[in-house]
């Protein structure tokens, strides 16, 4: 994923994983706060 991209290097894959984990965490928190 870090190949042939502007942000190059293997760290990009870890960054995407971290951001998606944050997305899942924020979405879960929002669901628990607003829908519980």
């Amino acid at each position, binding site marked *: 994923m870090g190949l042939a991209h*502007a942000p190059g290097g293997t760290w990009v894959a870890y960054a995407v994983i971290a951001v998606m984990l944050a997305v899942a965490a924020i*979405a879960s928190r*929002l669901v628990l706060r607003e829908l519980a």
Partner: protein
Amino acid sequence: MSEQTPSLPSMEALHSACAGVRPETSTPPETERAAHAEQPSGRLRRLRAGASRIPRAALMCALLAVLNAACWSVITPPFQAPDEPSHFAYAQLLAETGRLPDNDAGDVSEEEEEVVHALHQPQVEWHPEVGTISSPASLRELHEELTLPLVRAGPGGAGVATSEPPLYYALETIPYKLASSGSLLDSLEAMRLLSALMAGLTAFFAFLFVREIMPARPWAWTVAGLGAALTPMLGFTSGAVTPDAMLSAVCAALFYCLARAFARGLTHRRAVAIGAVTAIGFLTKLNFIGLAPGVMLGLVVLAFRGVRERPSAGRSRRAFGPMAIAVVVALSPVAVYVASNALNHHPLFGILSRSTVSSAARGSLLPELEYIWQFYLPRLPGMTSYLPGISVLRELWFARIVGLYGWLDTTFAPWVYNLALIPAGLILLLALRTLLARRAAVRRHLSELAVYLLMATGLLLLIAADSYTGRSTEGPGYIQPRYLLPLLPLAVAVLATGARGAGKRLGPAAGALIVTLFLAQDVFSQLLVVSRFYG
């Protein structure tokens, strides 16, 4: 819900305009000068007050949509989203020369041509068995191309994007310029991130739209906002350089403004907001024309409502005045465009004039109507078959909405689409249950629903008619869910209605389940794209 939130000027401005934020009292004459001196702080106070009325959940949904689209922008290889090379060429031409493209040939800049070649883009596009470049030799070649001083100003071609209005591309010149000290791939990523910001606006306004139409169920707003933010098609589209990203945001804002006006009346401020958003829509993408008849009907309905609800003296002027303002503001870019074409002796409506002429030259309208019908619905007896042996609604539209990425070449295994029919069917049944249970409320809002329906139908007709023109070369290639993204607020309203159908006690749980399903679909879609291009 209404906590103090960070300042978001553009969101606040539109939110305040639609909300009709006004000074609390009129200023007495003797204090006018003093008040005038305090105007900036007063305006700031009103903006802050407007911002404090924005639910924090709406901002969180916007943030999630931006982060999600940003991930998609990194995952999707350069130029492996539909028509991205053309859209990039348009923006680059505008940024480098200040000119709009003047031909739809593929003659882009030397820089883009060389980088596309080095990326092996044509070999990867439409070939799911071919991943993106990864060998050291290919990467070395790409690196060499990126460091060469290649010409950035194209000769004037932008492929399929040539006929599109310039607003989105004009905005994209900002990140292009900001990143222009780097390579083309740096500019492309910066431009993709601007599209990702637009995904945030889409989710934000989808949230507010559902808040207007379902004011009594705050949890349903969150279901809708999260549903929009986590829709993988929104993330994929807004993670690329394409005006569809901006059109989604503009249409979401338009649905919100209309819903607000239907709920609270068409004031001058709301009329200006509706007109301005409609004008922006015209300047964003030609597909917006499909929604315009619905917007005009909405303004007429709102004006007649105003006549009915206001006191008799001068009521017509007061009711139709805002409508006239909205129409004038909305049509101003069209008027400027027509006038400029008339002065330059070009066809008055540009590409639309040519389409109308070629449509008239085709003769009978019946085959086109038959095609448009079959573009969405099962063929009726006696109709010529245009898409034989295939269920267009289930196998093309539904399956592609569930998951179709890259250049329409990245799909899930067939069982995934069959499995997806179950939750989709359940949500639709539950939504139907809600509508039946609340049919009195539905009847009260029939005119408003008719406006949304006409907006949706107009867009669907436009896409199908366009597909009819290009059917010999594209086939079912026009069946792309990204074209339906302007209707995302309506789709997430159906999600929220479905969750409500589970009942007062189970509704929020059903909503949480729907959000979880969307999150799972989004994550698995990203993994699908990763495995297709990098596996």
